């Protein structure tokens, strides 16, 4: 790619951050973002000029997110079930993320649904590209995204932002 890398950060940094939050949760999102952009910077000159930069960055973020989730799994204390209440971050040093409830609701989805929602609805990739990342067919990716959205309507809208209705 002949274009300055800074442009990729400016154009897609925010979306990739949200994708990372959706995939690995807000606590590890920044590490995943950092690893992804460092790796992207390294490979940038070899990227063809006509490449879809956002899709490429999301692909790298996807791989880094898998690494981060493996690390999470290694340090996680096994639990029987996911907590009912969304995790809150109000007391954290970074302050509250306004859409914490959204990430908690996403965390409650099965992996495939969560990834398909993240890559289609957060990153804006077509279902065929999403299928390329998560495996299976485009139709299956579409279905998983739809199931994920349906589940989020139940968990996020009811628990998370019911006060805004």
């Amino acid at each position, binding site marked *: 790619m002949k274009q300055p890398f800074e442009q990729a*950060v400016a154009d897609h940094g*925010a979306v990739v951050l949200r994708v990372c939050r959706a995939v690995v949760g807000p606590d590890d999102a920044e590490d995943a973002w950092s690893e992804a952009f*460092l790796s992207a*910077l390294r490979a940038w000159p070899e990227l063809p000029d006509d490449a879809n930069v956002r899709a490429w960055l999301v692909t790298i973020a996807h791989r880094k997110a898998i690494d981060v989730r493996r690390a999470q799994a290694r340090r996680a204390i096994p639990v029987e079930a996911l907590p009912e209440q969304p995790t809150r971050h109000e007391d954290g040093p970074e302050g509250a993320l306004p859409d914490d409830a959204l990430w908690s609701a996403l965390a409650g989805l099965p992996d495939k649904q969560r990834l398909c929602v993240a890559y289609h609805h957060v990153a804006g990739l077509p279902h065929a590209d999403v299928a390329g990342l998560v495996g299976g067919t485009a139709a299956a990716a579409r279905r998983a995204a739809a199931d994920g959205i349906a589940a989020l309507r139940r968990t996020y809208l009811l628990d998370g932002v019911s006060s805004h209705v």
Partner: protein
Amino acid sequence: MSDRVIEALGRKSATDDVVLESLRERLLARAADDALVDVTYRTVDSPVGRLLVAATDAGLVRVAYESEDHDHVLASLATSIGSRILKNAKGFDEIARELDDYFAGRRRTFDVPVDLRLARGFRLEVLHHLQHIPYGSTESYGQVALAAGNPRAVRAVGTACATNPLPLVVPCHRVVRSDGTLGGYLGGLAAKEYLLALESAAA
């Protein structure tokens, strides 16, 4: 109802910009540690407009006026030096301070290391000579041609000045026509006039 979930997924949150700024700083620091950066840059305000300053590991490689179109300049740096270009919004303290001092009339020469890799051959010879034209004085294009080793290359001196990658720092504004008129300037004649007036007032 579905729209509200989908909207929430695609919406940027208010704190994202703050987080992204710190992520960018972290990226820049790690990239620098791994020697992955070709060029860093930022802009600084000045009395002659917003200036782009860009550097490689070796030193300041480009200063550009707004009229040169900063995006265009960065795109051309990406082609000529490398596309691993990152903004360093909090860096460049030294050149920013030197420019401030210069425009305040407190500084006559720039001390930051420069990287002249964007100039070659005769143009580079010209730039080397320009670095020795003292603050507050001027030379004609013909005098510079002579000093750079090719007295007949007056037009080429004009081209070297017009393509000077480091205006201000390499003082091409001190080259004027032998009849005393200003000649051209890559930052515009108003800027050239301003700089010469600044230097003659402070000299």
